[in-house]
C-alpha cells in the first residue's frame, strides 16, 4: 500500500512545508498527515489545496513515503533532500581554506549514507 503525504512551499520564504492535522502546515515531515490509499490521499490533497491560498502556501502536491522505525521517509531522494535541506554546506563560516589547496570537505558522507 502506498503511503502519501502533502507537501508545498511557503509563500513568504519558499520553505518546505507539510500538511498536518487540523489544517496546519509544518516545516517538519513528522507532523505530516499520512494517507494510505489513493482516495484518502486525494481528499487530503483537496483539503490542502483549499487551505493553501489563505495560509500563504504555494502549489501543494502528493509525495510517496514509507515508514521506518516510527519515522516518515520520502521514497524519492529529491523529496529526501527537500525534507532535510541541501546536503552541502550553506553558510559562510569556515569556508576559508587553511592553505591554498585544502578546504574542509563538507561534501558527502553522512547525508549520502542517510539516503
Amino acid at each position, binding site marked *: 500500500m502506498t503511503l502519501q503525504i502533502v507537501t508545498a512551499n511557503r509563500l513568504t520564504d519558499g520553505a518546505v512545508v507539510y500538511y498536518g492535522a487540523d489544517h496546519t502546515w509544518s516545516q517538519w515531515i513528522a507532523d505530516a498527515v499520512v494517507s494510505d490509499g489513493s482516495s484518502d490521499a486525494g481528499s487530503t490533497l483537496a483539503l490542502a489545496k483549499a487551505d493553501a491560498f489563505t495560509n500563504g502556501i504555494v502549489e501543494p502536491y502528493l509525495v510517496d513515503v514509507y515508514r521506518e522505525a516510527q519515522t516518515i521517509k520520502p521514497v524519492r531522494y*529529491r523529496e529526501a533532500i527537500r525534507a532535510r535541506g541541501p546536503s552541502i554546506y550553506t*553558510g559562510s563560516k569556515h569556508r*576559508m581554506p587553511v592553505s591554498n589547496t585544502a578546504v574542509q570537505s563538507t561534501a558527502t558522507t553522512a547525508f549520502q549514507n542517510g539516503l
Partner: protein
Amino acid sequence: MYRYDEFDHAFVNQRVTQFRDQVDRRLDGELTEDEFKPLRLMNGLYLQLHAYMLRVAIPYGVLSSSQLRQLAHIARTYDKDYGHFTTRQNIQYNWPKLKDVPDILRDLAAVEMHAIQTSGNCIRNVTADHYAGVAADEIEDPRVYCEIIRQWSTLHPEFAFLPRKFKFAVSGAHQDRAAVKLHDIGIYMRRNDDGEIGFEILVGGGQGRTPMIAQTICEFLPKQHLLSYLEAILRVYNESGRRDNKYKARIKILLYATGVDEFRRMVETEWEQIKDRNYDLPDVEMQRILTYFAPPNYETLDGTQRDFEVRKFEDREFGTWVKHNVAGHKKPGYAIANISLKPVGGIPGDATSEQMDYVADLADQYSFGEIRVSHRQNLVLPDVKQSDLYDLYKALCRHGLAVPNHGTATDIIACPGLDYCSLANARSIPVSQRLSERLHEIRASHDIGDMHLNISGCINACGHHHVGAIGILGVDRRGEEYYQITLGGSAFEDASIGDIIGPAFSSDAVVDAVETIITTFLGLRENDERFIDTYRRIGLKPFKETLYGTD
C-alpha cells in the same frame, strides 16, 4: 565600464516600483501564484526546492568594486552570507525571502544593477569574453557591443514571449573564451580585407537536450547594422520557432529544420525590409557608449618586470600560481589575474560576503576598481601591474583565494544541482567536491595538464557537461542518482560536443571512473598533450576498454 545616466537610473527604479507593487499584490492575496509566477520570473525570482532563488544579472560579467561590495551586502543582509557565481556570469542568491526581494532590487538599482530577464523566454543576460578589453589577442573590445545589445534587449516589447529562452555571447578576440559557438546567437568581432571591423554572426548553438554547434549566417556584418540584423533574426525566430514542444523550441531546432541557407534567406528577407528603419543606433549614441569603455590610465611600463621574474623563480608557489592563473595583457607590464573560486573540496562558484568585499578592495588597490566574472565561475582582476602581482598573490592567499588551478582539472564547472534546483535529477556539487579532492591528489603526483571537467545535474546542461573534455551528467536511474560520462567536449573555437562513453556510474563509482579515464590518458598521452588532444587522436575506444572491459 558603462555607467548609468539619468535615463537608465529612472528605468531601473520604475522597474523596482513595478515589482514592489506585484509582490504586495501577491502577499495580499490579490494575485494567485499562477498570475504571479510569470511576473516574478521576469525579475529573476525562482521558487526552488527549499527557498526562493534570485538571479542577478552581471552584464557581460563586468563588475565595479562598489557593485561587488553591494552584492556582498545583499548576501549578508538578506541571504545566508554567500552567493553563487554562475556559468552565465551572473550571481544567484539561494535564500532570499519574498518580502525582501523588492528591497534587494532597490539596493541593486542603487549600484546600476538589476535582475531583469535573468529568467523567462526572453533575451537573457549577454555574456562575453571575461578578458574583454584587456586580452592580448583582441581585435576590439566587445563590451561596447554587449552594452548596446543589453540596452536593446531590455524589455524589448516584441521579444518578451519568445518560444524559449535566448542567449547571446560576444567575443572580440582570436581565442574564444566565451563559448560563443554554444549560444543561440554567437558573435565574433572580425576584421575584413579592407581593415574594417565588423561582426561574424553565428546562430543555433546550444546545449541542453539537443546540443549543437552554432553555424555562421553572416560572415561580416558592418557595425552600424548590428541591431537591425539581430532584430531580423529574432523576428524570424519569434514567428517560426516551434511552440508545440518546449524541448524543440530553441532556435537551434528551427535552424536545423530549415537548414542554414534557408534560415539565412529568411533573415535577410526580413532584414531587407527593416534595415533602414532606424532600429540601429545613431552614431552619436554609439560614440556615447564607446566612451565609457575607454582604457583606464595605464602607466607606460616595461614589458619585462625584473622583480616579478625573480619572485616567480624564488617563490615556487607564486610561480605556479602565475603559470596557471595569470594571463597576458595587451599593455606591456600589466597582467590579467584569475581568482579561483574552486578551492579543493569546495563548492564551485560560491563566494562569501567577506570574500566578495575583499576582492572588491583588491580590485581598488590593484586593478582600477574593476572585476570580471568568468563563465567558468571564477573572478578576474583584469588590469594588474606585473610588479603588483606578488603582493596581490600574498593578499589572496590570506583569504583562500589563491588556488593555482585556473584551467586545470580541479577548476570544475558545476551547476547547483539537486541540492538547490527543482529541475535537477541528481546532485552536482557533492560529486564535484569529491572529484576535486581526488583530482587534487592525482595532480600532486602527475602532471595531467589543462583539462575542463564540467558537471550538470540534469539535461538542461547549466553545468556545460556537453563541452567539458570530461563531462558528467546526473541522471535519475530507477530512483537513484547516476552519472553519465562524456569525453571530448570543447567550448572553444574548436567547439565540439562530448561523446557518451557508456552506461552511467553510481554516485559511489563515478569518481573512480574519472580516475580510470585519467590514468588511461596518462598511459596513452604523447609528450605534453592536453587531454582533449589525446582524445581526438585516439578516440573513445581505449577509454571504454579500461572502464568497461573489452567484452
